[in-house]
C-alpha cells in the first residue's frame, strides 16, 4: 500500500491520501476464500496475517469463513484502539481515515451469504456501525438491510448516527432503514430529536425522508412537533412531507 505524502518546508508531513495498492507484497491475504481480493492492510499482530494469499474460493460456505471475517473485523478494531497498525500518521486524521477506508472496502466485499443473524460477523458489524465513519456506516447499513430487524441492530444504528451526527448522507440512508421499524419508540425519539436539535443538514434529510417512518398512528406526533422545529428549511421539508403523507392516506 502506498500513501501520498507532502512536506511542508521540509519539516513535516502534513497529509496523506490513500492510494491504490501497487506492491503485491504489501497486499494482505484475504481472510476467507470467497473474497477474491482484499485491498486491506491488516494489523501485523493478527493471527491471519500470515495465512498467505488465497485465490481459490471455497466450494461451500464454512464456519471458518464466519470466524475469519469476524476476526478480521475485530482486528481492525484493535487497529483503531491501539493505533499501532501501519496506517499513515501524517495528519491528525490520516490514520483513522485510511483504516476506515479499509474497513469499508472489507465490508463491501463480504458476500451477503456470509452475513447471518446472531453470528459473530453481525456482532462485529454492529460494532463498526457504531464506531465507523460514514463510509463504514454506509456499508454496514447495506448489510443490516439484509438481516431481520432487531433491537440490537436498531440500537447500533442509532448510536452510530449519534456518533456521526453531522453526516447527512448516512442520515438519508438510515431513514430508509428505519422504515423497517414502524412505530418503534427508539426511532421516534431519535428522529424527533434530530428534527428539532440535530445538525442542520442531517435534520433536513430526516425531514425529507420522514415518510419512511410515518404511520397513521404516529403522524399526529410529528405534526405536533412542527412548532418546535426552528430551522425554516427543516420545518418546510417536514411540513411538505407530512401534508403529502396525509394526502396519501386520504387518496389525495
Amino acid at each position, binding site marked *: 500500500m502506498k500513501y*501520498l505524502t*507532502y512536506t*511542508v518546508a521540509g519539516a513535516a508531513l502534513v497529509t496523506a491520501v490513500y492510494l491504490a495498492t501497487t506492491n503485491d507484497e504489501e497486499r494482505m491475504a484475504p481472510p476467507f476464500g470467497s473474497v477474491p481480493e482484499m485491498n486491506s492492510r491488516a494489523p501485523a499482530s493478527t493471527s491471519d496475517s500470515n495465512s498467505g494469499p488465497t485465490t481459490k474460493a471455497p466450494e461451500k460456505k464454512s464456519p471458518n469463513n464466519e470466524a475469519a471475517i469476524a476476526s478480521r473485523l475485530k482486528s481492525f478494531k484493535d487497529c483503531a484502539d491501539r493505533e499501532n497498525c501501519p496506517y499513515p500518521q501524517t495528519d491528525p486524521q490520516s490514520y483513522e481515515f485510511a483504516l476506515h477506508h479499509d474497513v469499508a472496502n472489507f465490508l463491501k466485499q463480504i458476500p451477503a451469504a456470509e452475513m447471518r443473524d446472531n453470528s459473530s460477523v453481525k456482532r462485529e458489524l454492529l460494532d463498526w456501525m457504531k464506531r465507523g*465513519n460514514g463510509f463504514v456506516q454506509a456499508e454496514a447499513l447495506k448489510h443490516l438491510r439484509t438481516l431481520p430487524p432487531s433491537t440490537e441492530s436498531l440500537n447500533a444504528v442509532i448510536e452510530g448516527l449519534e456518533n456521526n451526527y*453531522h453526516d447527512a448522507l448516512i442520515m438519508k440512508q438510515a431513514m430508509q432503514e428505519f422504515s423497517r421499524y414502524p412505530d418503534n419508540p427508539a426511532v421516534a425519539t431519535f428522529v424527533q430529536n434530530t428534527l428539532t436539535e440535530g445538525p442542520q443538514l442531517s435534520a433536513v434529510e430526516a425531514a*425529507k425522508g420522514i415518510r419512511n417512518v410515518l404511520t397513521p398512528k404516529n403522524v399526529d406526533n410529528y405534526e405536533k412537533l412542527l412548532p418546535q422545529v426552528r430551522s425554516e428549511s427543516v420545518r418546510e421539508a417536514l411540513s411538505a412531507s407530512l401534508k403529502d403523507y396525509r394526502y*396519501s392516506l386520504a387518496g*389525495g
Partner: protein
Amino acid sequence: MNTKKSLTIIFGLFLTGPAFAANNTPDYYKCSYREGGEWNYGRAPQVCSANSFGSDSYLVTNYSSVFFADTASRSGERVRYMGEIHAVTRDAAKAYLLKKKPSASTTEVNAWIEAVVTTAAHESFFSMYRRTSDSRLKMMRGDYGHGHGLMQIDDRHHYSAINNGLAWNLGSHYTYAMDILYTAWRKASTLSCVTGASNYWQAHIRSAWAIYNGGSAKGCRWTNPNDRWAQNDKNFYTSLTKKAWRNHVSNTQQATKIPISCLMEKEACSVTEPGNGSTRPLEGRLYKVDSQICLVKNQRFFCLPERDRQCLNAIGPASNETALTWTAAQAKVYGIEQQDRHQLCPQYDRNLIPVASGLRVLKNINLRDTPAGGLVTVVPVNSVLQVRDFEVRNANGDRYYKVSYQGKSGYLYAGTLSDNSSWGVPVSSSLSAPSTMARVGDSIRVVNLYGINIRSTPGGSLLGNIPKGASVRISEALAQGPEDKLYYKITYQNITGYIYAGYTMPSETLTDWAQVLP
C-alpha cells in the same frame, strides 16, 4: 507572521470528519489563477478562483462586504474586513446554536460563539473570499489547496460537499462546518475531561476543537501532552486565549447586513431591517413576513416564498431594496394575499416554462446542484428535458430550471428576461430520457395504496377515486404552490377531473403516487 507560526497554523488547517464521499483529490483541485497571500488575517495563502464551485454573481449579490480587496490600503482594508467577517461569523454561530438548542444558556451561547470564532481564526486567519489585483474573485485554499475557506473544509474528506458548492457559499460553508463542530460540541459535554474541568467552558471548547481536528475519539487529546498531535491543541489553546484577531476588530458588537441566518439555510434571502415602527404598512415597500416576502399594495400584503421575490414585480415595482421585517400577526391586520408562484411568475416573465413542460436546451449548459451552486454535469445542446421546478432571480430575470438529466438532478441556467429564447424553448416533443413526471399524452399507473381521488379542480370537490393499479391518460399537467404540487387532469370511467400526484420541492414524492408508463 513568522515561519514557525506559519507551520503551526498549517497543522491546524484540517477539518475532521470524513463524513462524505472521499476522494484522492489532487493538490489544488480545481484551482485556477492561484495566488499567494500572507500569514495574516483575511489574506492567508493560497487563493484560487471562486467560480470553480459556483457563480461569482451570486457571491457578489450576497457577500460582497466580506470580500477582502487586495487593491485597497492593506491595513485599512484589514480592519474593515475583519469587522465584517467577525460580525457575520459571530451571528452565524449564534443563529445556529439558537436554532438547535434554544434552551442554551447565555454562557453556552457565548462559549459556542467563541469556539466558532476561534476555529475560524485558527484554521484560516478568517480568510474566505478575496478580490485580487487581477479583479478576479478568489477563495482561500489552505493545506496544499485541500482546505477550502474560512473553516477549512477538506476536499479529500468532503469531496461531494465541495463539488456541490457547499464550501464555496459562505452560508452553507458555515452550516456544513458547524454541523461537524456541533456534533463535537455535543460529544464534548459528555467527556470527563470537560465535566471535571475547573474551567468548564474553556475545556468544552478545547475538546470540541480536538474532535473537529482529530476525530470523534480525540475529545480529551488536549489533556495528553504526549499525544502525537498535542502541538495542535497547544496552538489552538494559544488562539483561544491570546485572541490575536481582536487586534484587528475594533468593535466586536458591530452589526452586519448580511442575512446570514437565512443564507445558512437557503440561497435566496433578502436583506432586512426592522419594521419602521409605523402602524401602517408603507405602500410599495417589501416586507419580510415570517419566511415570505411580501409587497404592499393598496395596504394589503401580496406574498410569495422568498426565492420568488422577483415575481412580485408582476404586482408592482419590487426593486432590489431592503425588506422591512413584520410579523405575520401584524400583516394579517391588513390582509395577506397569498400568491401562487405558478400563476404570478409567468405574469412577470411571459416566457417562463411551466413545471411539467418540456424544455429543449439550445446550448451546452452546466447543470448545477443548486441554481448558483456546484457543477453536476453538462447538458448537451438539443436535449429535451422536463421542467421540475423554476427560479427567477435578480432584476435581469435570470431563470433556472430544475431538471433531471442522466439520473442527476440539478438546475440549469436558461437566460434572462431578454435573451432566454436563445438558451431554451418549450417543446412538446419526446423527452431525451424517461421521466417520473408525466406529460400530456402520457399514461400513468396509480401506486398509492389508497388510490388517488379525482377532484373537480386541483384540491377541489371529490368526484371519485382511481384505485391502486389502475391506469389513466394525462390530458393536462400543472403545478401549484411553493412545493410545486403536481396535478394531472384525467378521465377515468367517464369522470373527468384532477388528481394529485405528489410534489417536487424540496424533495420529490412523485413515485409514491403514480408510475409513468413507458
